[in-house]
């Protein structure tokens, strides 16, 4: 039990490190399946953080939310994405618009940027610098993934990464939002993924590819 307490108290800081690694993994990934696995890992780290907060503050609501994160983000959405990749029968590469080396370098730069960005707020908020920086880094790298990848499916993942960042920021600044808001956010997320999945099918059927960069020609 003592060990669990210790692990929970350290989980916040250590988990931030793992989040950085998943962000870098997403930036370097060359296949859809790798990206989906990286997203699932990221969500698992997030779930561990929620459970750690729940353990420290002894709140049942946070346990429920942690369970929901595992159910939806670690298992549900990755499974849905894998099925989507399977059904779309699209090529498996992610269509990176620049070399993975540059992508990793830029993501590293974004991580530094987030560290410098949160530096002034850390003292006021009394939270660990690592975790807040990880939240900002997730948001920034989600946005970067969105512009650097040309595949509709990768943009879904990028949006989910961005959402993970916002979720983490909310978690560490408020130590757990009210249940009803969290459930609303999750519902939103499922609807979003569902809609984007349908959309990906429509794009594929109309244009016979999933390359978003080619959609520009549709301008009237």
């Amino acid at each position, binding site marked *: 039990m003592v060990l669990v307490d*210790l*692990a929970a108290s*350290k*989980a916040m*800081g*250590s988990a*931030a*490190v*793992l989040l*950085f*690694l998943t962000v*870098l993994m997403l930036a*370097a990934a060359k296949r859809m399946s790798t990206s989906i696995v990286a997203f699932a890992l990221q969500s698992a780290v997030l779930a561990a953080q929620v459970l750690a907060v729940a353990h420290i503050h002894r709140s049942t609501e946070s346990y429920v939310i942690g369970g929901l994160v595992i159910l939806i983000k670690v298992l549900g959405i990755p499974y849905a994405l894998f099925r989507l990749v399977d059904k779309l029968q699209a090529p498996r590469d992610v269509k990176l618009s620049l*070399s*993975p*080396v540059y992508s*990793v*370098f830029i993501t*590293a730069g974004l*991580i*530094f940027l987030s*560290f410098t960005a949160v530096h002034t707020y850390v003292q006021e908020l009394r939270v660990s610098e*690592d975790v807040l920086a990880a939240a900002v880094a997730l948001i920034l790298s989600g946005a970067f993934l969105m512009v650097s990848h040309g595949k509709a499916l990768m943009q879904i993942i990028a949006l989910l990464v961005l959402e993970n960042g916002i979720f983490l920021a909310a978690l560490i600044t408020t130590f757990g939002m009210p249940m009803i808001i969290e459930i609303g956010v999750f519902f939103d997320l499922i609807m979003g993924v569902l809609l984007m999945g349908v959309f990906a099918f429509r794009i594929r059927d109309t244009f016979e590819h999933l390359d978003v960069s080619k959609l520009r020609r549709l301008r009237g």
Partner: protein
Amino acid sequence: MTTAAANVLQYLLLVLGAPLLRALIARVKAVIQRRQGTNLWRPYADLLKLFRKEDLVPPDSSPLFRFAPMMLAASTFVAAALVPTVNQSALLAFAGDFIVLVYVLALGRFFMGLGALDGSSSFAGMGASREAMISALAEAPLLLGLIAVAILAGQGNIVEIVRWTLSQNFFDVSAVHAVAFAALAMVAIAETGRMPVDNPTTHLELTMIHEAMVLEYSGPSLALIEWAQAVKLTVVLSLLIGLFAPWGMAANLTLAGLALGLGAYLLKLVVLAIVIAVLESSIAKLRMYMVPEFLGIATALGALAVVFTALLRR
């Protein structure tokens, strides 16, 4: 006195036990592929047989051809003396020895490349140039990763870094450690010629790197190369274990402490061997032109680790 004896023993364990680790990886791979696999002691029999055979030298080669494997073996064995395994000290330990480790390994590669070129076989020359490219690209991330860990620990000595890591809390994973580990693990794969970079079991001329270099070698020279290669793999893995997961390493020289250290070390090596075997069985080799990209990512991670040491200093 007893420390010195323990150091000599752990050194001998590393150098003499290294072929066994290679055999273990091959065995696990065989099990995954549903093959029977070879005996775990087979590498030793191979080495003995090779040492007793005649050393055939290409007619056009110079004395360098025979000299290169000796240099490779000598430099690798020196590198092995720098790494603590069971005990919290090493046979050779001095300030800045992690840099020596990097360049002693590079020295062996350099001479191996020269020897391969000297054999005047076109395949060996091709292998040498590929190996030179990979080692040039792998040097930066290897040094950066090691420097990041050294800055974090505030020590320039591998043994001191290991001691510092041991004194840290298990749950206090630092961002530097995580990123440096990722960089060094990628380099370790490239340095030891394992799967996504080089296939140690291939003899297909288009893809082989290390195997192409040693094509012309036979007899005792080949035995030295094979042995050095096995020791190098063990050294690199032991370095990873020592820097990132040294828990269980013997602090004091009691019999119980040493036994625990030995058990923990062997367990970690076996786990790493299984991980390598599973990885090698599940992924395909990278195309030659993708290797710079792979090592470029490692370099980016290494640079990130070094900058993190400045960011996270409190």
